[in-house]
């Protein structure tokens, strides 16, 4: 089945620093999503980006489909960005659910 690898597994930042999170997947995905999970909390969809570059607020995602990789750039990090960032791709089609990576745990200190 599909596999999703995320790196790094954890990241420590000082407030104001930028960060780049990586996601590699095993086969062509028609859907690719980035989620944020707060400590002990639920998942919130950040970006849906199957190809190209997308921005929302301080987040930028770039997906190169033929190379089976996506990145999430966080600019000017804030303490409220602390949490786990998950990359997910569709299993076979969007209706059959998502396959998730293990995530990157981000800790931002003042």
């Amino acid at each position, binding site marked *: *089945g599909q596999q999703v690898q995320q790196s790094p597994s954890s990241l420590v930042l000082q407030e104001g620093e930028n960060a780049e999170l990586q996601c590699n997947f095993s086969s062509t995905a028609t*859907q690719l999503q980035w989620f944020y999970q707060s400590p002990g*909390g639920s998942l919130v969809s950040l970006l849906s980006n199957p190809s190209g570059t997308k921005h929302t607020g301080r987040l930028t995602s770039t997906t190169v489909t033929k190379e089976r990789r996506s990145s999430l750039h966080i600019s000017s990090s804030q303490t409220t960005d602390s949490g786990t960032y998950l990359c997910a791709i569709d299993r076979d089609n*969007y209706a*059959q659910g998502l396959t998730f990576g293990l995530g990157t745990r981000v800790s931002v200190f003042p």
Partner: protein
Amino acid sequence: EAAVTQSPRNKVAVTGGKVTLSCNQTNNHNNMYWYRQDTGHGLRLIHYSYGAGSTEKGDIPDGYKASRPSQENFSLILELATPSQTSVYFCASGDAVDANSDYTFGSGTRLLVI
């Protein structure tokens, strides 16, 4: 506001007992999903549904059943709970919006089987 609501938020069950986790969505999404999240394994898909009356097996369906009696409701049933089913369970709803998928997750149910 569209949402996915799970109940209960926390549950303690005894080994061999029956557990039902409930999920309600107001997004009017066709598709609904049950995942479990465990350290070292991440989120894994248990069952999903295309609509009322439909249930499909995900990647780890053994020991679980699902029921979708209506568009809004999707339940996960553990007929004979085991300690290995101790986990955090998330329900989600989803649909395609243009070229992208729109997913909404519930807040999760923490299940402890003793």
